């Protein structure tokens, strides 16, 4: 595997780090926030919290 330039290496590293960070953050915050599941409804307790915060 040959790197054509260091730019590719940096971009790849940045992409991988951001991917790992997103997964870590998702696992850490699970259950504590609106799930963005698309069913925003007055029945959903998470959506209610989100709406209140927005106020």
């Amino acid at each position, binding site marked *: *595997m*040959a*790197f*054509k330039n260091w730019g*590719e290496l940096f*971009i*790849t590293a940045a*992409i*991988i780090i*951001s*991917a*790992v960070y*997103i*997964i870590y953050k*998702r*696992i850490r915050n*699970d*259950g504590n926030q*609106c*799930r*963005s*599941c*698309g*069913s*925003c*409804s*007055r*029945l*959903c*307790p*998470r*959506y209610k919290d989100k709406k*209140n915060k927005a*106020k």
Partner: protein
Amino acid sequence: MTVCALIGNPNVGQETFFNNIASVQQKSDEEGNSKIDKQEGFIDNNTKIVAFPGIYSIDTNSKAEAMFIDYIKENKVDLIINIVNAANLERNLYLTLQLTKLNVPILVILNTVHRAKKIGIHVDYENLSDKLGIEIIPVDKLNKHHIKVIHKYIQENSFSLPNALPENINTEKDAYSYIEEIINSCVNVKGYTLVNITEKIDRIVLNKYLAYPIFICIIYLVFKIVFSWIGTPLSDILRSGLFDYTIPLVNTLLAHQSPWFKSLLIDGIISGISSVLVFLPVILTLFSILSFLEDSGYMNRVAFLMDRIMTMGGISGKSFMPMIIGFGCSVPALMAAKNIEDERERNITALLIPFMSCNAKLPVYMLFATIFFHEREIVILALMYAIGVFLAFFYSLIFKLLVKETNYEPYIDELPEYTMPDLKLLLVHTWEKGKGFLKKIGTIIFSMSIITWLLSNFSFSGMVNINESFLAFIGKLISPIFTPLGFGNWQNSVSLLTGLMGKEVIAGTLGVLYGGNLSVTMMHYFNPISALSFLVFILLYSPCASTIITLKKEFSTKMALTSVFYQFATAWIVSFLFYNIGMRYFYGF
């Protein structure tokens, strides 16, 4: 310190009132496991306000009612602020009459006066105040003037106990007779139009014989619009744009880059994201129709229709609402299930929720339905939802047999009037929901596509052929489990593993592992029967990580583990039956 307790029927605007009038707010969860909270805040330095969840009466044994009564008994409350909906006095005044028995001064905030007038209900609130012996402040949309008036009333601190009510109101019947008397003398009804229209529509929509056929027709129409008329055709255009134009263009632009870098961007990121992104039009169309149904008031009727069916399956009314939320996502559904007071009922509901087909599974259903069941997408989608509901029924009956009988708690909700949804609001709601889907694509699908690409292109010896990669090694290790179900190759096994991060990730993973246009590549790995078996497995197998974590956090580790294993076993058995019976029936072996 003056202490005010804020109470009213559910959905009368008490939350908005509290948010507008209280400066400092904090949630108080003294009920341990329960998620029924009261909120505390301050109107000024000397006035505390405690808002309680909406209740209809104080004579039943619900947790919300008990919380309110206990607070009144155990604390020195100077004033009860009772929010009353002017458009529905009959129901709201029942609670007001009951509050008068608590020997605490009451202030009634007569809410939505303007809206009541609009539908022909004119309340003579001065006369009403005299009849009840309670101070009444009429408001519509709470503004600064109203807050000033309420504030002034509280500051004057000249509260007096309700003093005009007859003493012979002892039963529910007495209370409603007296309310009727009050309404006759204080409420002038002129052209009760809107409610009349609502009643007329309900007479048909909730008719004993017509309700379910109408519901099925509406669902069919929704599916038809989403999957045949608007959503899928737009998805096809987007798919063509992505696979026929965007990917070749990026390929050309990256012509001089290293092959591995090109593969990361095209086979990893773009393929992974595209395989889910193509369903954006379908999702947006579905969300806009669901928003329309919700804003129009029909969804509340659906809740009642479903309640009737679920009760037949042994699922009580209180379990039903969390299960409906489960069609969106299991996590908020589990949070809602925490409101169920009976522990056994609560746990049973939590174990049934993941069977509801959540929105995350929709892109995967669509992916397979469009490839293997062209022109029959609606049947497959409906089948998936039906299997989930049927299994929830089935397990509900089994659980009821295994555990002692639980207290039946009815589902109570107020049916709103039918309204024509505002187009602007509808677009805003649809965009809000679509934004959530795009956010998922930009975060979890993006991340998992990269991780999948990385693990499917590398092994300890560096960059290798996909069949010798880390992922192939893991996939081959677990694939024998799925061979009897008809999808035992390592790519499918791995996608089920990554699907534990979120079910929509399965579509992204298949996009990375099979590469290119999935409509073509996946034909080599599935036949319609194994595709259906795979979908059934996805519908039923262990819930995603978020659900497992929520089950552990909000219920117990035992519950989380139970859910993972019993769902996996159920998925395996049902998929096995589907695949083997299907193969024998359609292919003769």
